[in-house]
């Protein structure tokens, strides 16, 4: 009985932690995940960079597809400025068979991803970050060796058509960091696909 109470109390605490996720200003959570090239990539591998654009994305979501070329372009523009992209696929591939490591490799090769595409196999990373959809962006800033969350949300304000974009939220946030100020807005919301997980 005591054990049951303790277990449910722990479950509640875990639930609350999971639900909270990260907010702008928080210290980012370290991760070590398998990449499509077979290597393991960790956040701490980027300690010589100014920051990292962490993007939770996946293969089949139409919004992830709509943003795919824009994500590649972001890496090509910003990696040389100290803000490389790291893509993380958070979906359970039993529920979403297009998101197996094999299919991720195919996608990364077809589209020649210039950035790592990591699999959140245990689904602990997206929960720690508080990602809820794909694509979901977490811009991290390296502050004296510690990564801090600077911006959370969308890449821009038009998922359907890059040519119709009027606000490039993520690029504005990077520009703010580069000029020593804080991103405004520091968070944005967007429609996206749910992260597929066993309930």
């Amino acid at each position, binding site marked *: 009985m005591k054990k049951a109470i303790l277990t449910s109390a722990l479950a509640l605490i875990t639930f609350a932690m999971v639900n909270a996720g990260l907010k702008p200003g928080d210290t980012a959570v370290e991760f070590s995940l398998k990449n499509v090239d077979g290597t393991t990539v960790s956040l701490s591998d980027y300690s010589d960079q100014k920051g990292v654009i962490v993007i939770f994305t996946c293969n089949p*979501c*139409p919004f992830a597809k709509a943003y795919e070329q824009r994500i590649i372009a972001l890496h090509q523009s910003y990696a040389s400025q100290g803000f490389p992209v790291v893509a993380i696929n958070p979906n359970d591939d039993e529920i979403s068979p297009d998101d197996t490591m094999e299919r991720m490799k195919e996608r990364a090769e077809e589209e020649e991803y210039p950035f790592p595409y990591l699999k959140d196999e245990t689904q602990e990373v997206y929960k720690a970050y508080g990602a*809820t*959809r794909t694509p979901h962006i977490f811009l991290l800033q390296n502050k004296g060796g510690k990564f801090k969350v600077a911006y959370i*949300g*969308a890449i821009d*304000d*038009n*998922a*359907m058509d890059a040519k*119709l974009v*009027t*606000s490039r*939220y993520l690029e504005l946030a990077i520009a703010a960091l580069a000029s020593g100020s804080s991103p405004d*807005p520091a968070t*944005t*919301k*967007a*429609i*996206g*696909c*749910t*992260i597929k997980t066993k309930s």
Partner: protein
Amino acid sequence: MLSVMQGKGQNITEINREGLEVITQNFNDTTYVVNFWATWCSPCVKEIGYFEELHRESVSGNVKVILVSLDFPKQIDTRVIPFLNQKEISAEVLLMTDLDYNSWIDKVDPAWSGAIPATLIYNRYKRVFLEQELTRDELFNHVSQIMN
């Protein structure tokens, strides 16, 4: 409300930010069930039949089901109307044409992150917002909780 697109058996009315505000902030005796969905969203497709069932059961009652599609406007003729015909959906379907999501998600509910499916059930007394896929029982139970 902008224009009505004619499909076989199914009309889709386009709405913008102001239209969305109207349908999420009615305060009368009707209980509104506003479901945000898209044809490409598999959990949405799974649950949409329950919303249609709720609509058919309450045609003469005081529950109003509104299905707000977040499909891209260019896919209405090719995807959305054929889907609605195939599923024989007779509940009201609206197409959200404002793609500046950040400008209106919080107005529907501040707790909404933007993932779909998402469902708002409300009347003048009570309101619940659910960012999740619903089973038939969950949907009907939530509606009766709001009504009673």
